[in-house]
């Protein structure tokens, strides 16, 4: 069995909310609907549960269109867990869960032994059996949500729809509920479709992700394929880094800053020459201040290289690990220097392998590109080349390179100039 949606459209008077949505989802699968506020997640769920009627398009469970399923039969097939649920009326938790059996009880009948059994199983399943006689409104937020999941389970559905089911819960209860739902899916072969906000939770718990943007499917597939830096930037307008979490073996998303609206071409360009981790804080601050950054030449596996890739810096010249800078990479670096509006030198140690980086800085200053040096240590303390480095360094200073004693000073200077 599967839930399939084809060519679904919906709108309120003038405003189109969903435009041509289509996808298929199978039992035993957890599908997360992601997307910013207003992208149509909740609307889609309401269409699936027949609360709203689509303008056009079909929703099918197996081969049957849901329009042809009476409400009562649909309630046996599909249960909905809302964002939050509360009532001021004094029903016990057990009575609330028993309401899930409504579609199975005939108008003139009362609850059968079977109904009681199903309710008991559902409540034990969600660890709410011990609170069966408590008034529902006296329970905590997490307990209420678990009782509501039990009510959904009491419907014995094959499809579970959840609308941001954990958004009002603390991390502990979020995990608990997602773990419960996940084990249900696998054991009972259910299909779960959930609107979600937390990208990392979605990546960890869900098999498939449908990324919505402006009422359209932007991307669809496994978390690693959908939650790419580019997709997230396109849909949410934020810069993120997507990494693989070695502990949970799922991807995780680290937000950086809200993406700059202006194109990268119009931003001032900074070329950073660094190494050995000395450049990382500078790179981060320059990035925060919206400079376009290029870096060179760095050895692979250098801490600064790692930072640069975290920060999504694409213009970077890399040398093989622990190798001196080759001529060809030096020329590449000079190309980046030439394009830059200014060059920043971090407080890196100078050895024979990276002398060429100082030459690149001299190249810059001779081409009237300002050079700023962050000077934490004096040159004699960081020169390991028997004076060759100091000589180049002095030449740099003589040609007008500026030195700064603190990173903050350096950044505020470049900010005021560019």
């Amino acid at each position: 069995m599967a839930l399939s949606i084809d060519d679904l459209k919906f709108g309120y008077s003038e405003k189109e909310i969903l435009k041509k949505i289509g996808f298929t989802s199978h039992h035993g699968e957890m599908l997360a609907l992601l997307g910013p506020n207003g992208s149509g997640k909740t609307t889609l769920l309401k269409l699936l549960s027949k609360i709203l009627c689509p303008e056009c398009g079909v929703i099918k469970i197996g081969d049957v269109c849901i329009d042809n399923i009476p409400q009562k039969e649909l309630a046996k097939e599909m249960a909905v867990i809302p964002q939050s649920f509360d009532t001021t009326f004094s029903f016990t938790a057990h009575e609330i869960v028993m309401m899930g059996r409504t579609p199975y009880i005939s108008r003139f009948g009362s609850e059968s032994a079977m109904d009681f059994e199903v309710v008991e199983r559902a409540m034990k399943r969600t660890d709410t059996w011990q609170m069966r006689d408590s008034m529902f409104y006296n329970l905590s937020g997490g307990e209420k949500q678990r009782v509501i999941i039990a009510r959904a389970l009491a419907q014995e559905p094959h499809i579970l729809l959840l609308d941001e089911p954990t958004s009002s819960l603390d991390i502990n209860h979020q995990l608990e509920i997602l773990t419960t739902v996940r084990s249900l899916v696998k054991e009972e072969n259910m299909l779960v479709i959930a609107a979600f906000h937390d990208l990392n939770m979605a990546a960890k718990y869900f098999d498939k992700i449908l990324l919505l943007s402006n009422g359209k499917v932007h991307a669809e597939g496994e978390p690693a394929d959908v939650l790419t830096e580019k997709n997230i930037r396109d849909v949410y307008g934020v810069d993120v880094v997507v990494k693989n979490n070695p502990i949970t073996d799922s991807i995780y998303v680290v937000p950086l800053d809200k993406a700059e609206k202006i194109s990268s071409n119009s931003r001032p360009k900074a070329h950073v020459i660094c190494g050995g981790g000395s450049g990382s804080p500078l790179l981060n601050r320059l990035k925060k201040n919206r400079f376009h950054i290029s870096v060179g030449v760095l050895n692979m596996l250098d801490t600064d290289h790692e930072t640069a890739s975290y920060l999504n810096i694409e213009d970077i010249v890399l040398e093989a690990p622990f190798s001196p800078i080759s001529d060809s990479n030096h020329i590449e670096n000079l190309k980046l220097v030439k394009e830059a509006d200014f060059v920043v030198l971090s407080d890196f140690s100078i050895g024979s392998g990276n002398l060429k980086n100082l030459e690149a800085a001299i190249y810059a200053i001779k081409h009237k590109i300002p050079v700023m040096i962050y000077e934490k240590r004096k040159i004699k303390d960081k020169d390991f080349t028997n004076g060759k480095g100091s000589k180049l360094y002095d030449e740099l200073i003589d040609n007008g390179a500026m030195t700064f004693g603190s990173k903050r000073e350096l950044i505020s200077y470049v900010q005021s100039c560019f």
Partner: protein
Amino acid sequence: MEKNIQNKYKKWSTIIIILILILLFSLILSSVTGSANISNMQIIKMLLHKLPFVGDRIAVDWKDSSELIFFNIRLPRVILAMLIGSALAVAGATYQAIFKNPMADPYIIGVSTGAAFGANLAILLGLSFSILGLSPISFFAFFGSITVTFFVYNISKIGRKIHVETLLLSGIAIGAFLSAITSFMMYIAGDKLHQMVYWMMGGLWTSSWADVKNIAIFIIGGILVIIFYSRELNLLLMGDETAQNLGVDVNRVKKILLASSSLITAFAVSVSGLIGFVGLVIPHIMRIVVGPDHRILIPTSALFGAIFLVLTDAAARVVLSPTEIPVGILTAFFGGPFFTYLLIKRKKSVSR
């Protein structure tokens, strides 16, 4: 757990049996109360006399007028009080669930203003004919309330859906408009004003067997329909979307419930005028006693509404004997303070 539930059902049936006994007692108490002096013994004999076989053996030792008063005036009046009390209480409980609003009463969507308009119009025009045994006042009151309800309902219907908030607001808007006209009619009514005011206060002094015949079947039928849908009422309390997700055809059920409760209210009002507070307060009292589950709330409200109106009507007949006061005054007289008490109690439980 099943034991708990069985205990609950046992408790429910006990409450219902107790209420039925109280109702029977109230019916007897009310039918022996009144300004005409008829002894209890005489009434028992009169009743036995009507029975087959036993009847012949009872010697007639009462005046014909006593028999007339008892059978043609008191008995239909007591039965009407019972029907109207339960109709108003059940309609009130139903509206409170549909609107999810504890302040809702049977008159909330304009039944009362429509009925008052119709009744006053009939009084003003001085109509005197009878349709199906109904007086013109009853007839106009009934159609006034049904027309207004229908109108209000159609204003708030969008496609297949009924917007409860709009229903409430359009009820208020149309009600205000009709009240203005009703007030104007009262202003120009001259010596008919007295009759209008009496009608609007609500009372049962015009009761007859014709009234009972006309409304009994509809009121009993309407209450039964609402009882059949009491499980759905519970789910409607949880919100329309939740109810639908749990398998309730919300729009259809709401229509059935609105139609039933409006209809029983209209029938009640057509013969009794505007009796206030029964429909508002009785469901609240029963909710405190039996909880919010409509499977027990609706039947007990029906019984307790009947008890309350039967007893208040008896009181209305005796407090200023030999004249009687409109029962609508007494229901509000008892209901008002009680409702205030409920509000204060709720305030305390909220600020606890």
